[in-house]
């Protein structure tokens, strides 16, 4: 059954625009401010637990999955399947091209002679692992990965999500976890990150199924949010429970000195029996529970990095399961506020309806403003810089909104 036929509505969803706008604003905040001494730890990206900053990108993927389900269904209905596929693939390849242009790569060789001596992999290997695979590329590749199932029934999408996640665990066990955490470190999961980024995206498609009512539906009542809140809490709990094996990687005090120079565990995905036995010796409940999300864990001297941490850099299963649930919960709040109570913030609308432009502009404005607000500025001055950065970015995006110029992929 093609569920595309169930989503013929053409109205814009206020909750989705507002949710996306909030996500863009959150991104502006953490991307600009994260490097400042005055910035709270929870607003900084980290690689070993889930901070507030780490909740932003999954929300983008959630919104992408939601919108993809909505628009692809419409296109399938109006254009037919092959044309809809062709158009979507063309657009997503366009986004890949945008990524290649937006994410700058340093010159690969200083001279023509050096360039001639390099093979293709030496030229593109590092950018492919690191610079090119950032937010836009992950959105493009994850969307391409979802295309075969985005119009399929929920059970198929869920099966696709579980299969992708299992593949990510296997690849991480094989090489991917160590590879992404070895210089040049990958960003946001690296080239295989799409396998877990599809979790929030597919949860987004499921949310679309639930909240978007067909235009021919007679019932125009708001949907009950209780089952969705329970589902969101369940996902978050699942993500947290899966993260508890991180405690198996606690380093006993006696070994800390010996293992000081190693950041990653030797067995980061599948713990060795020795490790499990050692933990059993200290089997108190608290010794088995990971720190809750948003709480910083001990550093790598006390706990070696492993796959069960909530790590945005490695795109771990625990991180994306927890944040998929968190994204769903945040979206429910927007649904209640925007679609049920009809409250909207123009500020979020401006950013939410032109998210791609805002994304591209924000790094440009940030590069221009940050040099005048040093990283060690006192809080009042750092906040002033943040305000100026927001104002300028908003001015540009607002101007485009006034002109009716919306760049969407």
């Amino acid at each position: 059954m093609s569920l595309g036929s169930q989503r013929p509505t053409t109205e814009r969803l206020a909750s989705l625009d507002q949710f996306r706008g909030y996500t863009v604003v959150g991104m502006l905040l953490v991307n600009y401010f994260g490097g400042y001494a005055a910035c709270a730890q929870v607003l900084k990206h980290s690689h070993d637990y889930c901070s507030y900053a780490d909740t932003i990108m999954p929300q983008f993927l959630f919104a992408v999955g939601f919108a993809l389900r909505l628009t692809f269904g419409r296109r399938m209905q109006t254009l037919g399947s092959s044309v809809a596929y062709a158009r979507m693939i063309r657009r997503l390849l366009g986004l890949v091209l945008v990524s290649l242009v937006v994410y700058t790569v340093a010159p690969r060789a200083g001279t023509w002679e050096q360039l001639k001596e390099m093979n293709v992999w030496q030229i593109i290997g590092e950018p492919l692992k690191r610079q090119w695979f950032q937010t836009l590329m992950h959105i493009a590749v994850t969307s391409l990965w979802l295309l075969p199932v985005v119009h399929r029934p929920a059970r198929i999408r869920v099966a696709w999500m579980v299969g992708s996640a299992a593949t990510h665990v296997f690849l991480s066990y094989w090489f991917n976890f160590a590879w992404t955490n070895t210089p040049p470190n990958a960003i946001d999961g690296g080239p295989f990150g799409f396998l877990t980024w599809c979790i929030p995206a597919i949860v987004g498609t499921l949310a679309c199924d639930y909240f978007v009512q067909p235009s021919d539906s007679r019932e125009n009542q708001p949907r009950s949010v209780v089952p969705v809140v329970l589902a969101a809490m369940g996902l978050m709990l699942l993500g947290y429970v899966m993260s508890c094996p991180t405690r198996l990687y606690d380093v006993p005090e006696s070994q800390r000195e010996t293992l000081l120079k190693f950041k990653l565990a030797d067995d980061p995905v599948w713990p060795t029996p020795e490790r499990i036995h050692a933990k059993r010796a200290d089997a108190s409940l608290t010794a088995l529970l990971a720190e809750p999300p948003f709480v910083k864990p001990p550093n790598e001297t006390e706990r070696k990095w492993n796959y069960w941490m909530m790590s945005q850099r490695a795109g771990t299963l625990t991180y994306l399961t927890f944040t998929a649930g968190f994204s769903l919960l945040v979206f429910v709040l927007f649904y209640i506020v925007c679609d049920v109570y009809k409250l909207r913030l123009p500020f979020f609308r401006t950013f939410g309806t032109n998210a791609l432009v805002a994304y591209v502009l924000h790094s440009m404005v940030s590069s221009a403003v940050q040099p005048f607000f040093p990283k060690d500025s006192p809080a009042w001055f750092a906040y002033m810089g943040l305000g100026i950065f927001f104002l300028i970015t908003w001015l540009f995006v607002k101007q485009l909104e006034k002109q009716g110029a919306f760049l969407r992929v």
Partner: protein
Amino acid sequence: MSKSEIATPLASAARITSLDQFRGYSVAAMFVVNFVQHMDVAHQTLRHNNTHFSYADSIMPSFILACGFAYRMAFAKLVAKGNLEFALAQLRRRILVRSFGLILLSAMFFSLGGKFFSWSDMSASNVAKFAAELLKANLWEVLAIIGTCQIFILPLMATTSKFRLAAVVLLSVLHTLLSWSFNYDFVYGRPNWMDAYFGGAGKRAWDGGCFGIIAWSQIMLVGTIAYDITQRSPGGKSVRRLIVLGTLMMIMGYSMSCLTRLYDVRGLSDDQVQSLTQSPIFPNFATFSNRPWYNLFAEAPFVAPPSTKERVVNYWQMDKRVVTVSFVFFSSGFALALYGLFVLACDIHNWNIGVFRTFGQNALAAYIIHHLVTRTWFSIVPHDSSLGWVLISLLGSFCTTYLFVRYLEIRSLYLRL
């Protein structure tokens, strides 16, 4: 000036093909020049040399002339809608908003050229130094120049063509006087009296620095005059007028540049050479005598002059860094005559090249996108690359930019400030 003189019947026409095509040509040429000028294999005429007029130097004046043309056209459309006072009030409001928008965009896109590494670096003297260097040099990229010139010539927009032509001449005199007083050394970062008041001593500027606005505004004014010519003279007559006026301006520019020959050092004593070096505006006319007349012709435009060992650098060269008066006149004339040919080709013979249309109708987006695309391609094109690789990469860069801008055109997304 009366309403009927400004609001001609064509003022409300949707688009002028020749203008879109001319602007598109300028943007496309800018892509080529901005890419190849960093390459060792590039011919000197594809670089900005600051010693003579190269093909690369012809691009920015063409673009600014097109801006002046569009500026006047926008004013004429406003006049056609209401009375002159209404149009002027509307124009003031729009231009101030758009110009400050352009300046802000330029500042964000090109950054402000300074950095404070720590809070302790933010002393009053460092901040003042930053502000002086910003105003003197770092701010003046093409978008900021266009924005500021639009504000600078705003009071002249309701005047007649003759008045604006006179303003061009007066501004030339003003720029020459300022250059004589301090600006030539100011732009080149050499000692001058203005440094004591302005700050930024030793900092070299480009594209004229802050006082370059006077020079670029002249070219923009010529653009407004070009609009008047096309609106008042039908068909071939406007082409003739544009080409004749353009040729006259080129002759004037070239004639002024001939003063550069008075800076030849052959046969001069060390003292005389020293004296010439210290006086880049007023040459030693004594060297005028005892020279055959043909010895006083400067090299033709696009031809590189002799090295600094044979000729002292001076204000009369067609120098884009200072935006000298000879540069302004020759480049305005060149752009004007070239635009005349576009009118002939596009408005009379209905030629319309797709690539030029795409770039010309979305010039600001194209400009921003090409910078990002070029930067990406440069990661695999070292400066000493072979000619073949440079050409392949140039084609790749050009086509990538075109793809993006064409996509925006298909979706009717035009970036205008």
